């Protein structure tokens, strides 16, 4: 696994080194963004995520709608469709656990063609997914998340990070959520313009009580076709995963779109 990871990093850096000039870019694929504008503030985001586990596959298809109330405050909701296909059981599908969230900009340092922003993010997830099936679709627990999302975005590269605490009800283990993403644009910028962006990141999740950690490496590519439409995809695979064998993730495939509607 370490070797595979090394090859991915090497591949990404080789692509970077082939490109002499770099310009502006879009929102990260696998981590959150402190930019609450454009596609991140007034659009629909939806993507399909196909998760391959040791003894099951899961398809998750969330629909997320953020909305800017003011430039510094965005609220939104996420409704996921979930389908679980265990190897030895009947497949189950349906609406998963619905979330609502709010993000508020607490730091905004703007310079020419660059910005540094930090937002506070709160998210509440409700147990709306059915739990009377085997396997269950929902978590059967409320989840309350408080996190800090930061980003330094320039016309040449971007860095994003997130750190948050997710409190889970029903005596389930709370967890720490963290991510770091590096973004690199490939095409010259004129507005509006087509953009192709590469991302390389890590997404981690550590449970306190069970002492379990998963860290995924998350390379991705994104195509922005002008003002209102974005297509993105990527592959995630674990680099750290100390979970029970049956819970282990082999790989996650993601393909999604974002459409600006407001």
């Amino acid at each position, binding site marked *: 696994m370490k070797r595979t990871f090394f090859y991915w990093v090497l591949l990404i850096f080789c692509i970077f080194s082939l490109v002499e000039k770099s310009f*502006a870019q879009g929102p990260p694929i696998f981590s959150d963004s402190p930019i609450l504008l454009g596609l991140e503030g007034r659009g629909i985001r939806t993507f399909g995520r196909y998760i391959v586990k040791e003894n099951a596959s899961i398809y998750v298809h969330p629909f997320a709608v953020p909305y800017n109330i003011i430039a510094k405050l965005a609220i939104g909701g996420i409704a996921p469709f979930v389908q679980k296909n265990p190897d030895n059981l009947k497949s189950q599908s349906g609406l998963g656990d619905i979330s609502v969230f709010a993000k508020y900009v607490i730091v905004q340092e*703007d310079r020419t063609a660059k910005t540094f922003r930090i937002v506070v993010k709160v998210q509440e997830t409700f147990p709306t997914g059915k739990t009377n099936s085997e396997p269950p679709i929902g978590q059967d627990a409320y989840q309350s998340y408080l996190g800090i999302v930061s980003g330094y975005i320039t016309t040449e590269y971007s860095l994003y990070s997130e750190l948050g605490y997710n409190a889970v009800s029903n005596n389930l283990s709370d967890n720490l959520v963290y991510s770091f993403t590096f973004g690199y644009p490939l095409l010259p910028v004129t507005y509006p313009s087509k953009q192709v962006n590469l991302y390389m990141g890590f997404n981690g999740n550590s449970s306190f009580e069970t002492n379990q950690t998963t860290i995924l490496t998350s390379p991705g590519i994104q195509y922005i076709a002008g003002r209102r439409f974005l297509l993105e995809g990527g592959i995630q695979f674990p680099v750290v995963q100390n979970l029970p064998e049956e819970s282990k993730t082999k790989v996650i495939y993601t393909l999604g779109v974002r459409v600006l509607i407001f």
Partner: protein
Amino acid sequence: MKRNFLGILLLTFLFVGTSLAQSKQVKVKVDGLSCPFCAYGLEKKFKDVDGIEDIKIDIKEGTLSFLLEEGKIFPEEQIRKKVKQAGFTPKEITYPETSVKNEKGKIHP
């Protein structure tokens, strides 16, 4: 013949002169413009303003420019307010040149 030609020429100049309208070019330095996907909000804020046209955003230079129709007033504090509402930081506002627009909408500096 010569007199007729001069007369037509004069009339042509008079016609062209009346069909051109003076537009004021406005250039706003905007800090924080670092991504095309978030610039749309800025463009939209100014598109809604009556009397503004030919909006251009240069991300690398960090500028927003537009033409303000003759006779229209758009105070600087209103411009700054719009930029802030779009989520960016307004800096200096300049008026690089007065542009002339003909009936077909072509801009002539």
